[in-house]
Every structure is written in structure tokens, then in C-alpha cells.
């Protein structure tokens, strides 16, 4: 990231992370961190105060203590763990299915123009329908069991994986393919040493988006019809007007989202290190 920028009086809008502005420079890195924490801390304090002083009616915002209480309770009776595991399992199953199929689809349509011209237009049209628009039809077809969740989450993952894989395979520079032909590489070797490395950044983008979509779709489908899971907890909290349960479940959803993003960033930077010439 850009460092060592000039620190003049004019606000210097550089890349998001960089040298802290003048006021905090004295505190150095700690100052930067402190700046980041100021607003969340202030909000948290304000929340605690207003709840305890009764400024906010509790149906708008229960005190933080109640939210932590809800977290503690659901952790103690095992509901939180089982709900989280159920939700994660569903995402894993759906994402895996969708990603594998998407990769296969993407490779075939990326490599073969014939296949692409045959299948791509239909696929593109179908993908214009918002994923959750398929849920009512799917409910009538397969009910509200696990198969509903896996199918819809799989579809949500399939779309970006397929699109990006097609792109990645298609965009392998001709020169590389020529080289492969010149070196008389077998099909398999071409795939392994030329196509794959070149396509990996795109494929990874697709996988990343697919996972994000899967997670989002999981929440919707669990809100609409479920017996268990984090979305179910939120829906339950809503039905029984237990806002603290809703907030507790949202916190867990946020933490999981964060973990997924961190994990993916880690993998992505690892991949980029190995493929230095590439701009993602």
C-alpha cells in the first residue's frame, strides 16, 4: 500500500489505508487504531446509557446486557451452537454442489465455443431472475426440507462460479495456448500448466462471490421456512418480539460473514503471491 505520502495540510485522499492524518501522527499506529475504534465505542456507550436511562423504549433497542444475556442463554442451552452448525452445514453442502457444477460448466463453456453458444444465452437469462424468486416454486416442488436449502444455495453459488470460470478459461492468452501447442503438451498438461494457472484468479473471484451468495441465500431461505438454524432463530425472535435474540443472531451472522471474508482474503493473497504478475 502507498506509504510515505506527503503530509500537507490539504486533505490528501489517497488509498484507504495509509499514513494517518496530522493530528494523530503523534500517536502513530496506536493513534490510527484508536481513531477506528472511536465511533463504535461511542455508539456502544450511547446504547448502554440510553437503554439504562430508559430513553429508548425497549422494543426499539434492548440494553446491551440483554443482548449478551440472550447470547449467553442460547450458548448455554446449546441452541446457538446447533443453529450455527446447521446453518454452516447447509452453506457448505449447497456451496460445494453449486461450485463443483459451476466449475464443470465454466470449463466446458470456456473451452468450447460451441458449448458456450448453445448453453450460455439460456443460462444468462435464467440468472437474471433473483435467486430468491425461485423459492416459492421450489417449495412447491420439494417442500421445505433440506433439499430446498441445498438446491437454492447451490444455484446461488453456481451462477458466479460458472460465469467467472467461463471468463477465466476463455481469457487464457492465445500466446500461452500457442506455446502449449508448440511444446506438444497433452490436453491434460495444457489444462494443468497453462489454462488453470491463468484462469485461477477469475475462478477464485467466482468462488468468492459464490460463497458470499450462498451465505446470503441461506439467511433468506431460513427466514422463509425452517425448523432450525440462525435464520430460524431470527425469525423466532421476531415472532416472539424478542429483539435481543434477533440482535444476538445477527451478531453471529456478522461474525461468520467476517470469518468467511478473512479466510478468503488470506487464500487470495496466498494465491497472488504465487502468481505475482497478475492484477486481480
Amino acid at each position, binding site marked *: 500500500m502507498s506509504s510515505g505520502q506527503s503530509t500537507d495540510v490539504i486533505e490528501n485522499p489517497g488509498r484507504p489505508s495509509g499514513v494517518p492524518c496530522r493530528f494523530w501522527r503523534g500517536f502513530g499506529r496506536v493513534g490510527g487504531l484508536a481513531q477506528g475504534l472511536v465511533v463504535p465505542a461511542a455508539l456502544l456507550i450511547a446504547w448502554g446509557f440510553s437503554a439504562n436511562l430508559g430513553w429508548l423504549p425497549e422494543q426499539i433497542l434492548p440494553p446491551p446486557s440483554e443482548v449478551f444475556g440472550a447470547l449467553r442463554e442460547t450458548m448455554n442451552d446449546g441452541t446457538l451452537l446447533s443453529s450455527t452448525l446447521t446453518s454452516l452445514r447447509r452453506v457448505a453442502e449447497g456451496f460445494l454442489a453449486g461450485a463443483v457444477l459451476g466449475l464443470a460448466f465454466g470449463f466446458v463453456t470456456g473451452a468450447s465455443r460451441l458449448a458456450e453458444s*448453445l448453453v450460455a444465452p439460456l443460462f444468462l437469462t435464467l440468472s*437474471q*431472475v*433473483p435467486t430468491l*424468486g425461485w423459492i*416459492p*416454486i421450489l417449495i412447491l416442488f420439494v417442500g421445505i426440507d433440506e433439499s430446498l436449502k441445498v438446491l437454492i444455495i447451490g444455484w446461488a453459488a453456481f451462477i458466479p462460479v460458472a460465469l467467472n470460470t467461463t471468463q477465466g478459461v476463455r481469457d487464457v492468452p492465445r500466446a500461452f495456448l500457442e506455446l502449449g501447442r508448440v511444446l506438444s503438451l497433452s490436453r491434460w498438461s495444457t489444462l494443468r500448466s497453462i489454462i488453470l494457472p491463468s484462469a485461477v484468479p477469475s475462478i477464485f473471484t467466482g468462488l468468492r462471490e459464490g460463497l458470499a451468495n450462498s451465505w446470503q441465500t441461506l439467511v433468506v431461505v431460513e427466514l422463509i421456512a425452517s425448523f432450525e438454524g440462525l435464520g430460524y432463530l431470527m*425469525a423466532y425472535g421476531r415472532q416472539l418480539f424478542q429483539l435481543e435474540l434477533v440482535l444476538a443472531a445477527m451478531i453471529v451472522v456478522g461474525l461468520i460473514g467476517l470469518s468467511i*471474508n478473512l479466510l478468503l482474503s488470506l487464500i487470495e493473497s496466498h494465491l497472488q503471491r504465487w502468481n505475482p504478475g497478475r492484477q486481480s
Partner: protein
Amino acid sequence: MTSSVMGASGASTRAPVRSRFTPASLTPRLRPVIVPILGLALWEIAARTGLADPRFLPTLEAIAVRGVKEFSENGVTSDLAASLARDLLGFVAGASIGVALGLALGFSRLLERLLSPLLLAHRQIALFAWVPLISMWFGGGEAGKVVFIALAAFQPALTNTWQGVAGIPKIYRELSRVLTFSGWDFAVVIALPGALPGIFTGLHAALIYAWTATVGAELLLDIAPGIGGRMNEGQHLFHIDLLFLCVFLLGLLGVAFNLFAGALERRLMSWRHS
């Protein structure tokens, strides 16, 4: 570049004056529709011969008939209009706040340092996780739905605008300092135009997200006129033809949104390069 090998070679072996619609050059044109047409044909056959349970797979004719009925009698047009109205309202509200905040964050290092952890945290929470909270704060009526749609549009608008501003090359900033531009001039003459691609990407994404949120809000919140309401009706009453019709309409609108946003973006890009 995308013309197939077949067409190219086919053309080269014929007299150049020949009409364009030779069989060889027709096939690549037909290819995109072969699979859909085959699929539709199979569907119709299966539905008519009873191979597929008519309760689950109505004939295409039944869907078309339902479509005509909905448009002429049952007022699906007003449902579509209601959904679009909500969508537009939420989109405008959310996207404008997102763009404004994105610009502010891009320009002010202080603001960015203060707010980015909060906004980052907000980004981690899956969009639909907000539904129960929003319905408890704003009710499940129009207000709640519009707020949710605005929230959906806000996130991509903010992120892309912010990146757009951050991506303005340092060189332009130094140039503006050399030319002694005021902050305002810098913003209007250099920064905004420079950030516009990012802003438009954000608006495009926000449009798509807002539409998804509209359908979702109608499925999850109170009953009201709208395409989501019709889907609920179709699901509860087992009217599969209505459901397929709704999916078809959703797809149409999705395509329309993408085309519209894409065309705007291209217009902008061509203006930039001129």
C-alpha cells in the same frame, strides 16, 4: 472475433455476392436458441402427454393463458407497478446516501478512519438478516419495505463510490495542487469525473440488489400489492402457472434493469473517451 470458424470458412468458399442467409451462416445465429427451443418443446410435450404431473409442470399454453388473464383481469400490471414504485423509492434513497457517503469517505481521511470499521462491520451482516430487525423497528408495511430496499442499495453504492474516489491517481491530486485548485474545484473538475465509473458501477449493482430486496421484502413482510404478493398467492393456492408467470416476469425485469444500467454505463464510458 467471435465469428465462428465455420462461418468464416463457409464464406470464403462461396461467391461474395451470395445472400447472407446461407445455411452455413445461419447455424451460428441459431445456436443460442436451439437449446431453449428444444427445452420448451420437451416441456410442452411432457406437460401435454401427462408425462409430467400437470400440477407441477403446466403446459406453456396454460402459463400463457394465465398471463393473459393476469394482465387483463387480475391487474398484475398494478402489482408490478407497486413493486417497481417501492423499488425505485428505496433505490433512490439508499443509493444516494451510499454515493454521498462514499464520496465523503473518499475525500476525508478523518471520516474514513472514523467510520470505516463500522461500515466494514455492517458489510459482514448478510442483507436479509436485517429483515426481522427492520420489521420490528419500522413495521412490516411500506415504510419497512422501503427502508430494507434502501439498505440493499446503500451497500454497493457506498463501496463502489468509495473505491472510485480512492482510485483517482495521485498524479491528478498533485496536478490540482500545482494548478492551485481549491478543494471544491478539485472535487468538481477532477475527482467527481474520475470517480464516476466507480459510482456507476455502484449504481448498477445497487439497482440489482434493490430489485432482489424488493422481491424478498414482499415475500417476508406484510401482504400488499406487489409481485411478491402474487408469488405468495401462487404458492399458497398451488397455482404453479401463476408462479411460473411471476418467475418469467422477474426475469424480464432483471434483464431490463441490466440492459438499462449497462447502456447508461456505456454511454458514460464513450463520453469519457471522447
